[in-house]
């Protein structure tokens, strides 16, 4: 049944490795940018709040395919923004895709984190302010560490969605798992077995993530 699976011809592990890398860098970027956005949305400065809100609504409600295509077509082909690759297509597509995933996924990180901030009792921030900590210290030292601990489970969902969303990078020619799948379906005409292989590959990636983060969310929960 799987005799078509010639690993010499189809670099299955290489393709999934690209998926893993896309996920890793996008997750890292989204976590950072999402935290910055959340900080903006709770900041006392009106213009920052307005920017954070506008950004989240704009990017969260735009289809991801559109964002990824916009990164490629808009940023590179129109604006000639090559992200320091000098136009070399392989790293270029990868970096543009990561940029798109970060821009999009950060909005979900931001909103998860904001709901986490709401679980931190207001007295925690009041006590911190009463000690003389400034806004950024209150956020960094007291509120965000507790908020993060309460949103590990929702962030796990975001990460799982992101892992599967990376398949959209094939739309701009990044050689990740879904791109290879299209090639294999084209060549082998074995739709179901091929789909099963890739579905299984994603389960192998995503299942441990979910289990680990589920365990972690219980472990780091703040006791009150």
């Amino acid at each position, binding site marked *: 049944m799987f005799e078509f699976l010639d690993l010499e011809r189809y670099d299955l592990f290489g393709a999934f490795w690209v998926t893993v890398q896309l996920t890793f860098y996008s997750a890292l970027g989204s976590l950072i940018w999402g935290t910055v956005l959340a900080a903006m949305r709770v900041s006392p400065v009106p213009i920052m709040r307005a920017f954070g809100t506008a950004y989240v609504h704009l990017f969260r409600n735009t289809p991801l395919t559109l964002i990824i295509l916009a990164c490629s077509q808009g940023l590179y082909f129109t604006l000639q923004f090559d992200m320091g690759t000098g136009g070399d297509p392989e790293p270029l597509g990868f970096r543009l895709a990561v940029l798109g995933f970060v821009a999009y996924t950060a909005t979900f990180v931001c909103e998860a984190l904001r709901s986490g901030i709401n679980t931190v009792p207001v007295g925690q921030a009041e006590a911190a*302010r*009463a*000690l*003389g*900590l400034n806004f950024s210290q209150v956020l960094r030292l007291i509120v965000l560490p507790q908020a993060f601990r309460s949103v590990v489970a929702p962030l796990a969902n975001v990460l799982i969605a992101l892992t599967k969303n990376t398949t959209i990078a094939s739309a701009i020619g990044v050689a990740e798992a879904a791109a290879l799948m299209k090639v294999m379906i084209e060549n082998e005409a074995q739709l179901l077995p091929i789909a099963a292989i890739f579905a299984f590959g994603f389960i192998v990636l995503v299942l441990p993530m979910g289990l680990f983060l589920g365990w972690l969310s219980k472990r780091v929960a703040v006791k*009150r």
Partner: protein
Amino acid sequence: MSETSLTKEPEDASHATEDLVVLDSVNKHFGALHVLQDINLTIKRGEVVVVIGPSGSGKSTLCRSINRLETIDAGTITIDGDPLPSEGRELARLRADVGMVFQSFNLFAHKTVLENVMLGPIKVRKEDKAEVETRARALLDRVGVGNQADKYPAQLSGGQQQRVAIARALAMQPKVMLFDEPTSALDPEMINEVLEVMQQLAAEGMTMVVVTHEMGFARSAANRVVFMADGRIVEEADPHQFFDNPRSDRAKDFLSKILAH
């Protein structure tokens, strides 16, 4: 008891005015509710002022407005001669000099007891970590929870948590301590351990503003009792005079209700 200094000595006598906290015609509204009405109150250095009154009389709001956890609509508040800044770095610096103890303790839930006490001096005052730790441990010993230093707040009883909260505020070596109903969330048998720490602090000359329902504490530790009702200061008096011989009808009525049984 160790000999950790809790009160800050006035650095130069010229700056050290007698009046530490001055509220001048302070007004505040919560929507239509006029919660603070023309409050004038002066707290002298080393004085212990107990604020009592029925629920909703504005006493907690008054206490919280002194370090601007509540903003005020009109009037001025000065602390040690400096007017209370409205925002930013100046405000943070002023808050560092004003210790605050809350009804619900508000210990940082993700930090150990010791870390709770050390956080302010290290992050706000940028003091040396080793020195702060020595002081923090001494303070925890003083309030009787030295052996709990490495536990998390949720592992402590309410009374222990509140004593840690007092130590956390003292670690900043504040000029004045504000207590916002510090024993109201405690089980009855834990109230005394907190009051004892406060008594001791008062005896050492700490300037304190205490919002409380503990009349025994008011009687024994206060230099002055401020009675509030409906957003106004109705009566200000020496505790013995206030409890034994209240002047206003509102205070008589209040005292008859709480002292009747």
